[in-house]
């Protein structure tokens, strides 16, 4: 592979490969330090960024970071690359591409046309030259719209995944969190459960339960049980009412093998979901999750930096026309993203790279208890993602996932973001919230002590009745 050389201030700097140059140019990250690929000084990092800025975008087509013969993701990226779509920027360097993206030439229409001409490596490279405000600004210009039972990703909209996890998959416990979420106006991206086990019978039962709730309350949203794609296929074969097929994915063939998947298996999963033909508005039937550091954690990173590898996962995602893709940015832990500062930047990079590649990008704004991060850090990332036009975030009671043991955004957080930035839920879901008496745009939650009529019976069914809250209201 070609050596990359740059002369600055009378000194010559060498980077052995394009991958090494990309890694050295990547903003500081504990995962790259763990992998031994990070710049060894602050100066070296900026020198690498300068060298990267000079590099023609076509270099990424000529010098694959992982050899074509070794990796099916590389083959996917290069085989699918659209030279015609690439034409408007084919003559640019990475630095010039940054300028192009920030200029008036880049708008939602030109960016949409460009997406098939971009490779993950080009997108990752330009992100390394960008500040947070650049990532926000360009991310906001991109428009990626997907449909199943509603419409996700329209401008001025912010959707939420209602995540009603329970540590033993207890039906009533899950239902309690679903009710809480719906009454806080959450759930238009998906009502999605992470089951505590991969047990197929449990998965089938949960899918039936979600299907029944969605149809009985006539909620314009979709459901998902986030289990391995092979389990989802088996559940479909057993007749489970499946809207979306889920899978965690990564940016190298070897890392995906660590997840027990390959492209052929994902194709099979998608075909199984499509065969049910359940989406009245559209056929986006896949839901993917990603996160920087997953390839290294599977010892499958090929000496590359984690942000570049993450962008390659979006090439996997877009192949299958998903409804939803989100980075689970702070879930992996401090060995990959050490603190709030690293998590915030990574979340914005991931959103930027995904959207630029044409992926319907959301973000699980999150952290674990062994990371140097707290609610203040999440508020910063949340607010910035709202400004960047992020398609959806998670919604969970009080930010506390009692099954996965991490903190993500709450139902209240989404209300905050909608209030501050004037964002609305998906249109079909917004109409349901209004007619149900739950929520109105510009007003917020539309009821106080008395439950909306659609839900009044549920507390009675529990034998609880309505609680006298007269002292508080």
């Amino acid at each position, binding site marked *: 592979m070609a050596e990359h050389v740059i002369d600055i201030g009378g000194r010559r700097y060498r980077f052995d490969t394009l991958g090494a140059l990309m890694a050295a140019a990547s903003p500081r990250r*504990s995962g790259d330090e*763990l992998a031994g690929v990070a710049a060894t000084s602050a100066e070296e990092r900026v020198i690498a960024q300068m060298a990267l800025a000079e590099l023609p975008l076509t270099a990424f087509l000529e010098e694959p970071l992982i050899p074509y013969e070794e990796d099916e993701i590389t083959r996917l990226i290069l085989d699918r690359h659209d030279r015609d779509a690439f034409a408007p920027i084919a003559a640019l360097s990475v630095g010039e591409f940054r300028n192009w993206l920030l200029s008036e030439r880049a708008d939602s229409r030109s960016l949409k046309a460009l997406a098939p001409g971009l490779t993950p490596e080009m997108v990752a490279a330009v992100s390394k030259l960008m500040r947070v405000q650049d990532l926000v600004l360009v991310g906001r210009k991109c428009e990626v719209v997907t449909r199943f039972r509603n419409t996700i990703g329209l401008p001025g909209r912010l959707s939420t995944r209602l995540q009603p*996890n*329970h*540590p033993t998959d*207890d*039906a009533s*416990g*899950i*239902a*309690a*969190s*679903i*009710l809480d979420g719906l*009454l*806080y106006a959450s759930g238009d991206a998906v009502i999605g459960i992470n089951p*505590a*086990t991969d*047990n197929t019978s*449990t998965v089938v*039962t949960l899918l*039936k*339960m979600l299907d*029944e*709730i969605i149809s*009985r309350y006539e909620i314009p949203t979709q459901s998902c049980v986030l289990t391995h794609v*092979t389990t989802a296929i*088996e559940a479909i074969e057993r007749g489970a009412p499946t809207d979306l097929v889920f899978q965690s994915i990564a940016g190298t063939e070897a890392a995906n*093998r*660590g*997840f027990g998947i390959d492209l052929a298996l994902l194709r099979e999963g998608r075909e199984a979901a499509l065969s049910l033909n359940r989406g009245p508005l559209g056929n986006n039937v896949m839901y993917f999750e990603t996160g920087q550091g997953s390839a290294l954690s599977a010892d499958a990173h090929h000496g590359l930096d984690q942000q570049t590898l993450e962008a390659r996962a979006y090439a996997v995602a877009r192949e299958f026309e998903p409804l939803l893709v989100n980075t689970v940015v702070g879930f992996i832990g*401090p*060995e990959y993203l*050490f603190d709030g500062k690293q998590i915030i930047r990574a979340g914005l990079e991931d959103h930027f790279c995904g959207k630029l590649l044409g992926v319907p990008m959301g973000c699980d704004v999150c952290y674990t*208890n*062994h990371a140097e991060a*707290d*609610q203040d850090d999440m508020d910063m990332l949340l607010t910035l993602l709202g400004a960047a036009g992020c398609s959806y975030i998670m919604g969970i*009671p*009080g930010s*506390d996932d*009692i099954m996965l*043991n*991490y903190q993500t955004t709450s139902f*209240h957080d989404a*209300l905050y973001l909608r209030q501050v930035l004037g964002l609305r839920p998906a249109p079909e879901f917004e109409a349901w919230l209004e007619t149900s008496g739950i929520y109105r745009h510009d007003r*917020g*939650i539309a009821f*106080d*002590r008395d*439950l909306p009529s659609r839900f009044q*019976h*549920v507390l009675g*069914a*529990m034998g*609880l009745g*309505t*609680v006298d*809250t007269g002292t508080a*209201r």
Partner: protein
Amino acid sequence: MNDEDLHDGDAGITVINPWQRLRELTDARIGLGRVGGSLPTAAQLAFQLDHARARDAVHLALDTERLMPDLDARFPLALRLQSRAVDRDEYLRRPDLGRRLSEQAEQELAAITPEPCDVSICVVDGLSARAIHEQAIAFLDAALPEIERLGLSLGPVALVEQGRVAIGDPIGEALKARMSVVLIGERPGLSSPDSLGLYFTWAPQSGRRDSERNCISNIRPRGLRYANAARLLGYLMREAQALGTSGVALKDDSEVDSRLGDGRQGNFLLPPA
């Protein structure tokens, strides 16, 4: 946290959610109420306190002095081993070191020359020593009879400090075990700083991938009960022997608790139509 704690004395600014009583169904923070669309003060501070406690749990040290006699009493031999991570700070930054044995531990294992066995069990601090302190022995007392019923032989047990899941691979390999069970402290959640995880691996050896393991998560009194987790482990052991493998190829098709019903009824959101 009880309802009382969540009543802010603010003359009607806080909206209370009547469904907060559904909290008897889940530990999730439902029905927190709201001020405008935001979190009321009491709920906000309750969260901060739980986060502070979970942060402290990550840094609690494993009490090996207390655990070794309990393990000695239950296994033919109990070993006390360490990973290559020397302290918690290095452990958090360098998961690779937590997956490898210290040189001293390697020498100790090499000196044993064990008989081949069916099952090697490792008890590992992971991210919550508290989970090991509170759940490990009680779970073993439920699981060991299950293993005996299956007619499987136990190798030495290893108590490991600063360890990650994959450290069970070189240990199981050195102990010539057909399968490995790693009990490890899961990362502490706000409501569960004491949750035990179990990772089951057929034919343990260094370099096994995560997709080659099966996981049983959230073992603790308020999560998955010891007896249920032990039964599930027994199922995995039987299936792994039949298939000669573990991980994604070994689907969990065991019968589930019928409390889940058929999904279309059986909870308050779906009363009989």
